[in-house]
């Protein structure tokens, strides 16, 4: 029973309070309401002063007590706002009631001089995007201002245009405004009330109704907009979450524990990938095909973002599977191309450089499918671009055959592989980093290991682009061939 009761109140509460997504806008609206109350209080004070010094032709007594009451009410409301920190569901109702009463009071004193006061609370209520609140305020305004019109007819600023008099009524000027003389002439209260309601209140109420209709339309549209925006926010939050997760998955897919082969002293390698967006189309890969053969891969999928990342994942797996079957680099690329072309209606392609290093001899067999030239440093020499033979990109044309080449790396050689994100990194003025600068960075002070070589290039690119947005994925792989493995060469 109690639970049922609780639910009942909860339902009412929810109905009145509005949805959670309107919470923030409601707090803002409460602040606006409080500010308007404050301004109104100040206006009341000014009116009091002006009446006291005789600028308004009203008996000071009739202005003093309602004004003081209204100002007290405003103060109480402002203190209340402060206590609840503008953040309670019922505050908006209290504020609307307060505003309506303060304005109705002002209206009862100044009557036809301030017709606009009637519409203010309704206009303000639309700021809350709550149908119930605007409805509530409209009804409350109608009642309160009808009452104030009646009270104002007999006590407030008299509207001379609506006064009808019996034939022969005499008025005696008392000095000052005519209004006072009219009241003193003994016009009947019922006539004043009737005429005020008919000629003052009714036309004003019709205008008020139009404002109320406009306000409720603003409420409806505003509500829809807030809801739509909220849905969009939720959606983009979900997408962001998914992209972050995708980024983590992609990063984990690439071997990223360094040193990569702590038990091997013949070579050292280091690699990194920094996608321009959450996920990227670049990848590097390395693995031992067997005890004596290290496979190195660097690749760049056309395009960026999620499509490129999906394609990259598939490519990486196909290449690794082919490589682990002990095929030659050219064969690996040829077979990978056939596999990708079989299902590639989106015409995505990937540039790949793939090399297999025979650790015992230093023999590097490599094939290049449309990828950037590798940079090679001979022992005691400098990094230079090795302009190898290029085949067409992988996934571009069915039946493409790739050629491979061989070279020997002497102990102490280094091989630097990269994607076009490095030479094409762009500074704020639009000029590109270029391979020249890349080689310069590579050939800077001698570095002890691949990771410092790679970080130096990274630092150089960063310095070059300054605060320009990273536009393309940035991927690098550096291998140092240190010594021939003794046991192998002895065999």
């Amino acid at each position: 029973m109690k639970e049922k009761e609780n639910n009942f109140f909860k339902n009412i509460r929810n109905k009145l309070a509005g949805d959670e997504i309107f919470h923030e806008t409601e707090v803002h609206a409460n602040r606006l309401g409080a500010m308007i109350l404050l301004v109104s209080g100040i206006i009341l004070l000014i009116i009091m002063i002006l009446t006291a010094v005789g600028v308004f032709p009203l008996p000071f007594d009739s202005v003093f007590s309602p004004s003081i009451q209204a100002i007290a009410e405003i103060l109480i409301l402002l203190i209340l706002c402060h206590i609840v920190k503008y953040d309670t569901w019922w505050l908006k109702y209290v504020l609307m009631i307060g505003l309506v009463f303060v304005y109705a009071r002002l209206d009862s004193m100044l009557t036809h001089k301030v017709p606009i006061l009637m519409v203010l609370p309704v206009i303000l209520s639309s700021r809350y995007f709550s149908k119930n609140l605007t409805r509530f305020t409209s009804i409350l305004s109608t009642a309160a201002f009808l009452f104030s019109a009646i009270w104002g007819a007999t006590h407030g600023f008299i509207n001379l245009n609506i006064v009808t008099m019996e034939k022969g009524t005499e008025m005696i000027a008392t000095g000052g405004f005519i209004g006072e003389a009219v009241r003193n002439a003994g016009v009947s209260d019922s006539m004043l009330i009737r005429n005020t309601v008919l000629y003052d209140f009714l036309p004003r109420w019709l205008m008020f109704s139009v404002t109320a209709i406009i306000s409720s339309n603003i409420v409806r549209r505003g509500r829809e907009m807030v809801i739509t925006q909220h849905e969009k926010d939720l959606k983009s939050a979900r997408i962001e979450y998914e992209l972050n997760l995708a980024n983590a998955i992609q990063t984990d897919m690439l071997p990223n524990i360094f040193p990569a082969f702590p038990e091997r002293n013949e070579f050292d390698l280091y690699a990194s990938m920094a996608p321009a967006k959450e996920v990227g189309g670049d990848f590097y890969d390395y693995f031992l095909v067997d005890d004596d053969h290290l496979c190195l891969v660097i690749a760049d999928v056309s395009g960026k973002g999620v499509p490129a990342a999906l394609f990259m994942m598939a490519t990486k797996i196909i290449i690794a599977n082919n490589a682990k079957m002990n095929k030659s680099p050219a064969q690996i690329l040829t077979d990978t191309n056939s596999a990708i072309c079989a299902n590639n209606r989106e015409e995505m392609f990937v540039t790949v450089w793939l090399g297999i290093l025979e650790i015992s001899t230093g023999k590097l067999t490599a094939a290049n499918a449309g990828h950037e030239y590798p940079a090679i440093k001979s022992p005691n020499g400098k990094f230079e671009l090795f302009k190898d033979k290029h085949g067409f990109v992988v996934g571009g044309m069915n039946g493409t055959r790739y050629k491979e080449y061989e070279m020997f790396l002497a102990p102490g050689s280094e091989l630097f592989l990269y994607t076009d994100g490095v030479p094409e990194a762009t500074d704020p003025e639009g000029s590109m980093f270029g391979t020249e600068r890349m080689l310069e960075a590579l050939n800077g002070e001698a570095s002890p290991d691949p990771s410092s070589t790679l970080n130096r290039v990274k630092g150089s690119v960063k310095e070059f682009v300054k605060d320009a947005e990273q536009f393309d994925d940035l991927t690098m792989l550096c291998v140092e061939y240190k010594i021939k493995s003794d046991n192998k060469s002895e065999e």
Partner: protein
Amino acid sequence: MLNIGKSTENGKAVLTLDGRLDTVTAPEFDKTVREVLPGITELKLDCGKLEYISSAGLRVLLTAQKIMNTQGEMKVCNVNETVMEIFDVTGFTDILTIED
């Protein structure tokens, strides 16, 4: 930024590229190619003012080349040094018909 000029006449189309063909501009070029190609037997791509082409741009060229392989021929002309190098590196020189 990329400005694409197009003119078609008697089944011959000329597309002029002015600017950078990269991830940002490739979708627009892709759309233009797909609009222009139906019924075209000779497509000429004027790259005289093409400053740069990225892999996303190459993808559109590949698509266009594949479509034209089935319905006529495609020529790429006035390629500057930067773009030519990209064609070389990516192996696109093997599949495109490049003219001066």
